């Protein structure tokens, strides 16, 4: 069993004193940032990147992975206590979580959320342990045409499955790709779109985009919300669950962990879609659907187990193919590349400590999160009361350090501010930022694999259609692209039949 053996190697990394410490710091920071409404996992990861400078890549990734799934845990707390989801993944948790808090059962809801996150995270990391290496083995045989088609599919999926307008998502993806072409072209050495500036010759650093478009932009939104008073919280109440309640929730956990994992593996989908799907399915199959929305524990358990399972599932394409399927895993990929590691099918053989270390850290991280969250929930919830003005200033400073620490140039800081403004304006007019960062990170790889493939085929595009795997991916990307149109048709039909 390769996987078991590999996992043992991973535990050696993750169970070292440093390993546990970094996972612990990661999950704490992630939980706190995830809890603050408006700040999402991408911001959490991006502001942590400067701290990882000079660290070994495996430890750095432990920290970042901790932040990432910690944020998925933390989102639930503000959903339940304040009816203000910290991250979009936690929106579905408010439906039943907040009513429970109003009935004075916040403790119960928080306990269910923590347990569900634990179950979802753990079940899916077990599947990940066996699936990722298998997939990596298949992917080793992929050549440039396959990679090109696969990445195209990933981009299409993010654009058409994300929430909101597909056209807007495609536009931001195109813009992200355009920004990726700035700098010296790797194949011919031609400087592109540098406007004669030396600073732009190497292209724009990914941290500038991640911190600007997400962290700074989210902070600007916080500026507008800085005066929002933290609502008077009802007493949290007991955290204990009865045996009957646990028995009732167990099948919910099992179903939605697997559902969440599968949705997470798919490019483009991810935690938000997984949690809504989980909530709706659970409501549909329940014997008493009318209880949902009024404070049903299963209504908390379903989305919370699904969104954590999905965030783990998203690691499958990242670790085994080197291709992120979401904005947050794209930022994680960018962070790895800053450290000189290129995830992909060869990661498992070239850097087994990184590959297995991350997977092992997820087992530990989930346990740590449960241990941290259950007894400390009432105290952690107090973080929500940190004064916003101070928090805003500190996050801005962190963004500045992050960029300055890689480039040592104030030019990049100005660029960071420009992207911050752009990110804020994009939010105002409902242009999603995740496709932008994904296209920015994939852009270079897509272009290179396209051109390599064309070099192999001597300039004929047939190469993409005559190789079965690449053809399959291309057909799939077309299908994903068409999904929103089918949905629109179906909706129109429904409306017509309703009117008749």
């Amino acid at each position, binding site marked *: 069993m390769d996987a078991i053996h590999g996992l043992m190697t991973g535990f050696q990394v993750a169970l070292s004193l440093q390993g546990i410490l970094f996972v612990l710091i990661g999950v704490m920071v992630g939980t706190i940032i995830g809890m603050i409404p408006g700040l999402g996992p991408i911001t959490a990861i991006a502001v942590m990147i*400067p*701290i990882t*400078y*000079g*660290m070994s890549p495996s430890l750095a990734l432990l920290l970042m992975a901790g932040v990432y799934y910690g944020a998925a845990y933390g989102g639930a707390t503000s959903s339940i206590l304040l009816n203000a989801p910290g991250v979009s993944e936690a929106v579905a948790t408010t439906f039943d979580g907040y009513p429970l808090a109003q009935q004075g059962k916040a403790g119960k809801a928080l306990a269910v959320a923590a347990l569900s996150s634990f179950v979802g995270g753990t079940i899916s990391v077990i599947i990940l342990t066996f699936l990722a290496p298998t997939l990596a083995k298949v992917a080793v045989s992929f050549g440039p045409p396959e990679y090109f088609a696969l990445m195209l599919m990933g981009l299409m999926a993010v654009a058409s499955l994300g929430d*909101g*307008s*597909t*056209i*807007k998502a*495609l*536009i931001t993806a*195109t*813009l992200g*790709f*355009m920004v990726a*072409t700035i700098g010296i*072209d790797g*194949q*011919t*050495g*031609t400087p*592109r*779109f540098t406007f004669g500036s030396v600073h732009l010759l190497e292209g724009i650093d990914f941290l500038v985009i991640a911190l600007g478009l997400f962290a700074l932009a989210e902070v*600007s939104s916080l*500026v*507008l919300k*800085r*005066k929002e008073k933290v609502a008077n919280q009802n007493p949290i109440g007991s955290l204990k669950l009865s045996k009957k309640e646990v028995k009732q929730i167990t099948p919910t956990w099992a179903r939605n962990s697997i559902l969440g994992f599968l949705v997470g593996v798919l490019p483009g989908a991810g935690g938000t879609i997984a949690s809504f799907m989980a909530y709706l399915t659970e409501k549909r199959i329940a014997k008493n659907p009318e209880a949902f929305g009024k404070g049903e524990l299963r209504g908390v358990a379903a989305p919370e187990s699904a969104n954590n399972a999905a965030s783990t599932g998203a690691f499958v394409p990242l670790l085994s193919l080197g291709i992120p399927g979401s904005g947050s895993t794209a930022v994680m990929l960018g962070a790895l590349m800053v450290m000189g590691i290129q995830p992909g099918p060869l990661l498992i053989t070239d850097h087994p400590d990184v590959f297995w270390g991350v997977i092992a850290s997820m087992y530990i991280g989930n346990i740590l999160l449960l241990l941290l969250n259950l007894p400390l929930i009432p105290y952690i919830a107090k973080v929500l009361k940190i*004064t916003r*003005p*101070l928090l*805003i*200033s*500190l996050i*801005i*400073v962190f963004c*500045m*350090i992050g960029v*300055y*620490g890689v480039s*040592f140039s*104030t030019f990049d*800081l*100005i660029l960071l*501010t420009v992207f911050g*403004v752009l990110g804020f304006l994009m939010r*105002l*007019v*409902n242009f999603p930022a995740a496709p932008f960062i994904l296209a920015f990170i994939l852009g270079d790889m897509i*272009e290179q694999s*396209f*051109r390599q493939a*064309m*070099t192999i085929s*001597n*300039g004929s595009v047939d190469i993409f259609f005559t190789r079965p795997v690449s053809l399959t991916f291309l057909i799939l990307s077309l299908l994903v692209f068409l999904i929103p149109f089918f949905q*629109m048709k179906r*909706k*129109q039909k429904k409306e017509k039949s309703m009117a008749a």
Partner: protein
Amino acid sequence: MLKTANQKIAVFLFLFSIFYLIMTFNLPSYPYVPVDSDVIPMGLGILLMILSAALYFVKEKSEASKEEHEKIPGKEKLMLLGVLGIILLYIFLLEPLGFILSTLLFIFGCSRLLGYKNYILNGVVSIIFPLVVYFAFTKGLQVALPSGILPF
């Protein structure tokens, strides 16, 4: 003609894509590769042109209800511009003044601007945070931050 925000953005993006395409035509060519460095950018420019046209004409169902986005009151706009100004000031002072002093001023000033009135706590955080971060980064993580006019 420009009724909705989307249409204004669409026109802007359309003009931008033309500008971008002109730039791609001016890229120098390199004869020894099947796909030169201007092919992908050209494709992107054309794609953006098509997409901005689509944004102008197509009204998506999900969009119709969302068309009304939040308006930011004038006072808050000034506040955002103020924060932007103070960030730019911070960037310009970072290297001449050094990380510790400029960050100290920034945290205190920015928190105050945003309405934080607890001067003592604000002062304490503005002094301790830059010091801790500075030494953690320069000594612990070996990332050099500008020392500026301070001797360390």
